[in-house]
């Protein structure tokens, strides 16, 4: 079958033209690879161009398995006793992109809502809810999508008293408890004195 996608042989370029074209393509590609792509993508900077052009930071910012932060984390343990139809809200002050790990367990079934309120924005419409449900436990990690307070609302809708225990560790400053119509801040002690 005739190959339709080939240049007409009569106007095929000379061998010289072809070599120049190919060599130019290869040289330009290598140049861009070594001076721009390697520093920006892999943090390899053989010619120092990544440093000069400020591209090295791109490689540093790329996501790796390790994420270090400037300050030590804190940990926290709280226990709440919830009488029938009592509720409590407990939240941590987390800055944007800060993480925490948590585990909570209750002696009975609780209705809960894990949510966050962005700092400086009052009102229901700004609250973002991440998990709602009914259960006796939840374990997880949380990465704050914005600065604000992040935590749980729990409610006992049974006729039994329920004990709730929460353990957490994270890069938070402190926590805040909302209970019985009031709220109070709780400072958490640093890990290292």
């Amino acid at each position, binding site marked *: *079958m005739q*190959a*339709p*996608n*080939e*240049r007409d*042989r009569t*106007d*095929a*370029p000379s*061998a010289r*033209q*072809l070599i120049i*074209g*190919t060599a*130019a*393509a*290869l040289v*330009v*590609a*290598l140049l*861009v*690879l070594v001076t721009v*792509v*390697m520093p920006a*993508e*892999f943090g*390899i900077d053989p010619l120092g161009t990544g440093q000069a052009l400020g591209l090295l930071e791109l490689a540093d910012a790329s996501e790796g398995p390790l994420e270090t932060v400037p300050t030590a984390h804190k940990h926290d343990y709280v226990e709440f006793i919830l009488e029938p139809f009592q509720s409590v809200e407990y939240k941590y002050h987390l800055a944007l992109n800060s993480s925490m790990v948590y585990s909570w367990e209750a002696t009975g079934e609780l209705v809960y809502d894990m949510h966050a309120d962005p700092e400086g924005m009052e009102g229901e419409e700004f609250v973002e809810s991440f998990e709602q449900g009914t259960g006796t436990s939840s374990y997880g990690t949380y990465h704050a999508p914005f600065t604000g307070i992040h935590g749980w609302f729990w409610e006992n809708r049974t006729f039994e008293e329920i004990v709730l225990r929460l353990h957490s560790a994270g890069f938070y400053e402190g926590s805040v408890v909302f209970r019985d119509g009031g709220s109070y801040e709780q400072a958490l002690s640093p890990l290292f004195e």
Partner: protein
Amino acid sequence: MFAATLPSLRRNPLAMMLVIGSAWLLFTSATQAHTIAGNDANFVQDIDGPAILPFIYLGAKHMVTGYDHLLFLFGVVFFLYRPVHVVQYVTLFAVGHSITLLTGVLANLQVNAFLIDAIIGLSIVYKACENMGGFARLGRLRPNPQAAVFVFGLFHGLGLATKLQAFELSANGLITNIISFNIGVELGQILALTFVFIALSLWRTSGSYLRHAFVTNAVLMCGGFLLAGYQITAYLTTPVY
């Protein structure tokens, strides 16, 4: 306003290519072009059972936002003037990549994704070289373009397979999901080719097309070398666990 700029774009193919090119870039830069990432990755991993439409969507998205496949197809259709030839070549390409996509995932072939992607980069180099007339002098030794597009299709399919294999795909509904992904790849390819073909057809109406064919394909070749170099660097720097 747009209607007014259209004729001038038609007279200026370079500007038109830039407009189309930047539209692609806008579309692809938001999504990590080469891998299945972010929310899509979470979705693929969580899935258990057949999910036809989501996998069709993922396949189409992978094709439309995958610049390596797009550059290769651009090279393939560069000198195809008649739609029937486009269909013929693209069918060969599609058959090639479907074979390796399906068998690669089902037989769990373990191929290094970076090396396959480097070969995909070199397939762009090859096609550009062919378009530059690089094989015209070889006479009977000249590689058959149809066979070449089929063989490179096989490699592109392996590349697609490695992207899916990067996840712990549930065995439940696996065949349905891979076939759906494959259908999506073909749909995405048709969509992408439509734009490429229209753009090339518009450019062909101006005299600059053939004059700039050599340089355009040299630029395409440069892109292929760059993609291959990127993948080889990634291969050499990524530790094996």
